[in-house]
């Protein structure tokens, strides 16, 4: 079920009074953006500051207290989730959002989220289940909602629900089922398995992991063969030649262990150095995409072992400047794509940048 592109998201509380695609997506985003505040996750709050401002997400002061289900179910006359699904009219959500906007306390938050668990749209139900998990006194009720949403026809609903499940209930048998599904292949595409290799300091970043924003962007259309199981390849992310040497060996071992041959490698930063070093050690790869990769003479691919090599970078990358590496490959066998963006090392793994500059057409098929 594709959604219409949203050029202007609908802010809180107005989003909860409509049922258009933009309203549904905005409602889900608002609910998900409330979650870092409930967890008091300052880093995530800072990361999403701009989005929170655009969507006018109310600030909630979390106290660590969980709200009892009966505190919200009874006043709202909501039937328990275990009973038959209760369809609430759109006016209820508008009113609850409006009340919450006037008095953004934990009870109002819980009331809106509890009601949204009964929302007619599954995306809003999944988003509410994720955000409400840390606030309700009975979070186990929400796992069923997420599991149910992973069966939905809408890919976005499935992805959001599976990501939530992986984080909140990693032991769910539904996740095991999902990971056993055969990999989807794009019609007419190569038979490579694609792999994302992160760079320095990025071992704990989310963007490259299954469910992360860049991983999801690539998987949903660009590289449907992208490796998406939870044991995705990762390395220390340490900043030394030794760390990269270990990582190159580990990459070869990991690929052999997963019987993946000639992988299509999409790498960021020194993840590219790791991949190139692995080819020097005898790894055969398919196409190699280097995103914001610093240029060091010791890290060059063995071109006899790789497919086409494409480097995508920004102008005067500040992280590469600190690294002391070169900004541009001079070997004509590496196709360079320089984006009209300055300084930002992370721009090359930003899905918005990929869309804006049509990067899917720049990388090899």
């Amino acid at each position, binding site marked *: 079920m594709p959604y219409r592109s949203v050029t202007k998201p609908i802010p809180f509380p107005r989003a909860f009074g409509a049922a258009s695609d933009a309203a549904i997506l905005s409602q889900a985003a608002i609910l998900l953006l409330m979650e870092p505040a409930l967890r008091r996750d300052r880093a995530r709050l*800072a990361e999403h500051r701009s989005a929170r401002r655009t969507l006018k997400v109310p600030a909630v002061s979390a106290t660590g207290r969980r709200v009892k289900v009966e505190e919200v179910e009874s006043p709202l006359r909501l039937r328990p989730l275990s009973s038959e699904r209760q369809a609430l009219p759109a006016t209820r959500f508008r009113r609850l959002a409006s009340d919450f906007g006037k008095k953004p306390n934990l009870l109002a938050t819980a009331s809106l989220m509890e009601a949204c668990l009964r929302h007619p749209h599954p995306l809003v139900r999944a988003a509410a289940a994720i955000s409400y998990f840390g606030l309700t006194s009975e979070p186990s009720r929400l796992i069923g909602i997420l599991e149910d949403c992973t069966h939905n026809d809408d890919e976005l609903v499935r992805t959001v629900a599976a990501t939530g499940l992986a984080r909140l209930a990693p032991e769910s048998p539904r996740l095991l089922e999902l990971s056993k599904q055969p990999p989807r292949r794009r019609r007419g595409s190569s038979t490579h398995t694609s792999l994302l290799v992160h760079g*320095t300091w990025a071992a704990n970043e989310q963007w490259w992991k299954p469910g992360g924003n860049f991983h999801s962007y690539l998987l949903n259309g660009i590289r449907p063969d992208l490796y998406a199981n939870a044991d995705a390849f990762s390395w220390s992310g340490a*900043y*030394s030649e030794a760390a990269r040497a*270990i990582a190159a060996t580990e990459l070869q071992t990991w690929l052999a262990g997963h019987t993946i041959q000639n992988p299509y490698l999409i790498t960021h930063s020194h993840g590219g150095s790791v991949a190139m070093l692995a080819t020097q050690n005898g790894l055969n790869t398919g196409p190699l995409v280097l995103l914001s990769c610093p240029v060091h003479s010791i890290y060059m691919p063995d071109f006899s072992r790789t497919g086409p090599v494409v480097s995508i970078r920004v102008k005067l990358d500040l992280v590469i400047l*600190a690294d002391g590496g070169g900004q541009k490959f001079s070997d004509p066998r590496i196709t360079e794509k320089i984006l009209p963006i300055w300084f930002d090392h992370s721009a090359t793994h930003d899905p918005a940048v990929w869309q804006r500059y049509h990067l899917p057409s720049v990388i090899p098929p």
Partner: protein
Amino acid sequence: MRLLLGALRLYVYRALWYWLGITSAGRALVKALGSPDENIRSIAGILLARSGKRAEALLLEAVSRRENVPTVLTVLGSIGDRALIPQLRQFTNDQNPDVAKAAREALKVIEFSTKT
């Protein structure tokens, strides 16, 4: 422009700490490892790792305060000093799996560095 200024600030912190011995500037550099901006985190990490053993005291201090522990342990691993092995070992069974993993990876890098 904000990114450029943020990066320049890190170079100033590094110079004040490394060349003039101003510890508070060094602490600010370590604190930048937890910046919400990936560029700032990366530059801070590189500047600290390139400072070698001189950065160890600041980094261990951050670890003792449980400040950005996985990244700080990764920077310590990058420095590659064998003398840090006992401190890093203490974290290999940390309750936070990210911390435990970062400690194990850092130990692996140090052991490899010293072998080669």
